[in-house]
C-alpha cells in the first residue's frame, strides 16, 4: 500500500449508457471517478457533459494544440504548463497572441472540477462556458472560431476524434469546449506528501512540517480550508487599501466586478494552495515572487479597507503575526503540498 500512485487511487467504474434514440450513442461510456477520501469521494461533474474516455482523449489533444490560436503558436498549455501545475511562472503573462500583458496572473488548474466560481473573481460559472474567453480574447488565443473549426475539419484525425466523442455534435465549438472541460476536470491532485500523511499511507511529516501544519490550521485554514486548501469563497486579504480604478469593467475591483455589491470590493477567490511551491509568483496580479514575501505580507503588509476580512483583524491590530521560525515551518509545510505525480502524470501530458 506504500507506493500508491495517483492513478491507482483514481478508481473508475464504467457505466454503460442505456441506448436511447436521441441520447449519446451506446458505444460511449461515461467514467465515474472516485477521488481520494480527503477530497470528498466523487469528482464533481457537469451532468450535461459527463466525462467519457473519448472526450478526455480529444480534450487533452486540444489543450496542447496551438491550432486553436490565431497565429498557430499559442495553446492552453502555453499559459497552463503541466510542470508548473498548469501555471506559467510569470506575474502577468505576455505569452498570448498579441504579446500584451494580461491583467491577471495565470491560476493553477489543480482540482479545477471543484471550482464553482471560475476566474479570480468567480465570474465564470462553468468550464464549458469559460473556454470561449481564452479562445477568443485578443491577448490570449485570439481565435476566430469559424476558422478554427474549418482547420479542425480538414484534419482527419480530429474529425474522427470529434465524431467518436460527440457523435451528435461532430466537429463543433460546443464539442470543442466540452472536450476541453472534460480533460480539465480530470486534473485531480491529491497525492502530495501531506495527502499520504493525512490518509495514513505510511508517510510521516518532519517536526518542522508538523509544526507548520499546526500553524496553518490555526492561522490560514479559515480561508484555505483543508483538504482542498480553499473554501472556494471570496475574501479581501489586505493586498490594497482602495479599489477606485474602474477600468476594464472593474477588473481591478475583485468580486465587485461581478456582483456590483460594494461589500465585495477587493475580494478575490481563495486560491487552492495545493502545488503552491510550483506556482510562483503569487496573488491575482502575481505581485509576490516567493512564499516568504507572501508570509511577510500576512505578517506586516496587510492594508486596511472597509472590506478587509475579519480573520485578518483583531482589535486594532491587522494581519497575522508570524515569527521568523513560524515562517520557516509554514513554508516547510506548504512544500508538502507539492504533488509530483500530478505534474509528471502522462495522462495529463501531451
Amino acid at each position, binding site marked *: 500500500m506504500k507506493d500508491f500512485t495517483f492513478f491507482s487511487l483514481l478508481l473508475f467504474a464504467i457505466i454503460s449508457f442505456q441506448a436511447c434514440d436521441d441520447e449519446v450513442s451506446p458505444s460511449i461510456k461515461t467514467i465515474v471517478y472516485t477521488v481520494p477520501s480527503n477530497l470528498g469521494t466523487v469528482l464533481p461533474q457537469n451532468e450535461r457533459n459527463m466525462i467519457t474516455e473519448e472526450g478526455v482523449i480529444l480534450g487533452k489533444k486540444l489543450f496542447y494544440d496551438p491550432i486553436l490560436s490565431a497565429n498557430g503558436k499559442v495553446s492552453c498549455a502555453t499559459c497552463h504548463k503541466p510542470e508548473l501545475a498548469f501555471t506559467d511562472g510569470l506575474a502577468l503573462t505576455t505569452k498570448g497572441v498579441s504579446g500584451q500583458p494580461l491583467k491577471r496572473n495565470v491560476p493553477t488548474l489543480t482540482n479545477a472540477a471543484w471550482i464553482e466560481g471560475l476566474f479570480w473573481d468567480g465570474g465564470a460559472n462553468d468550464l*464549458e462556458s469559460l473556454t470561449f474567453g481564452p479562445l477568443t480574447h485578443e491577448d490570449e488565443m485570439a481565435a476566430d472560431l469559424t476558422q478554427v473549426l474549418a482547420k479542425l475539419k480538414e484534419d482527419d484525425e480530429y474529425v474522427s476524434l470529434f465524431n467518436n466523442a460527440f457523435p451528435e455534435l461532430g466537429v463543433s465549438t460546443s464539442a470543442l469546449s466540452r472536450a476541453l472541460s472534460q480533460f480539465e476536470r480530470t486534473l485531480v491532485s491529491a497525492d502530495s506528501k501531506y495527502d499520504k500523511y493525512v490518509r495514513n499511507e505510511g508517510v510521516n511529516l518532519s517536526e518542522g512540517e508538523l509544526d507548520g501544519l499546526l500553524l496553518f490550521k490555526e492561522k490560514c485554514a479559515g480561508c484555505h480550508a483543508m483538504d482542498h486548501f480553499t473554501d472556494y469563497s471570496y475574501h479581501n486579504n489586505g493586498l490594497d487599501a482602495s479599489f477606485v480604478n474602474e477600468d476594464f469593467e472593474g477588473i481591478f475591483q475583485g468580486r465587485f466586478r461581478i456582483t456590483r455589491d460594494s461589500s465585495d470590493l477587493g475580494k478575490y477567490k481563495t486560491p487552492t494552495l495545493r502545488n503552491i511551491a510550483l506556482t510562483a509568483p503569487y496573488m491575482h496580479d502575481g505581485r509576490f515572487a516567493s512564499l516568504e514575501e507572501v508570509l511577510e505580507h500576512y505578517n506586516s503588509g496587510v492594508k486596511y479597507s472597509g472590506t478587509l476580512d475579519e480573520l485578518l483583524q483583531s482589535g486594532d491590530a491587522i494581519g497575522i503575526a508570524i515569527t521568523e521560525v513560524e515562517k520557516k515551518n509554514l513554508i516547510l509545510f506548504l512544500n508538502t503540498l507539492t504533488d509530483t505525480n500530478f505534474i509528471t502524470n502522462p495522462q495529463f501530458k501531451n
Partner: protein
Amino acid sequence: MKVINKVQLIFLVVIAVILSSCSDDDTVNDLGTTDLKLHFHPHVNGEDFAINETYSMNGNEVSFSRVQFYVSNIELTKEDGSLVKFDGNTSEKEDDLFLQVTAGNMMYDLGEVEIGTYKSINFEIGVDTVINSTIEPTAWPTDHPLSADNPNHYYWSWNTGYIFAALEGTVNGEPFTYHIGTNDLITPTGNIDLNEATINGDNGEIMIGYNVAKFFNDIDLSIEGNRSSHTMGTKPLALKVAGNIKSSFSTM
C-alpha cells in the same frame, strides 16, 4: 334511430381524435391548425433598415454593424382571452422556444398554432432567467438558438450569461457598443396589440416591427460615456437602452 346515430358518431370522432393525437397533445378546435411565422421587421421610422447603412436619427448620423437580441417566453393571446405558449408542452424551461433575432434575418418559425383570431403577443427580450447562466451554451444541439455554435452566439465568458441584446456601430463616426444582459435586465415587452390578426392557412405570419431609431431615445450621444455599456458598471444606461428597445416594437 337518429339520436343513437349521433351518439355513435360522436364516439367515433372522439376515438379518432384520441388515436390521431399521438404526435401532439393539444386539443384542436374545429378550424384546425396552421404553421405560424413571426416576422421581426427592423425599420427606421417606417423606412427600411439595413446593416451598415447610415441614417439620420435625432440629428446624428448613425450606422449599425450589429443589431441582435434573444427572445424567450413568447405568448399569444387569442380573441377569447386564452393564452398560447411555446413551451413544448412541458414545464421544463429547456423545452421552450427561444429565438435569436438579428437584423439580417426576419422570419422565425413558431410551429403550429390553432387557426383563429389573435389579439396580442408578448415575450421577453433576453434569455429566460432560469436558463441564462445556468445552462451552458455547449449543452444544446448545434442548431439551437442558444447554442455556442449559433453563428451570432453572443455571451459573456467572464461573467457567465448571454448578451440579451447587442447594438454596435458608429454615431457621427465614433464607435458605439451596447451589450445588454444579466438576469436583472430581462425585459418583458408587455402586450403588443395585433389588431385582431386572423391566422389561417392563407395568413400564417405575424409581423412585428422594431424601430431602430428609437433605440437611442433620450440618450445624449455626444457624451463619450453614453456610447458604450456592457451593463456591468453602467446599469442605468443599459436599463435605458433596454427600455428603448422594448418601446420600439409595434405591429406593422
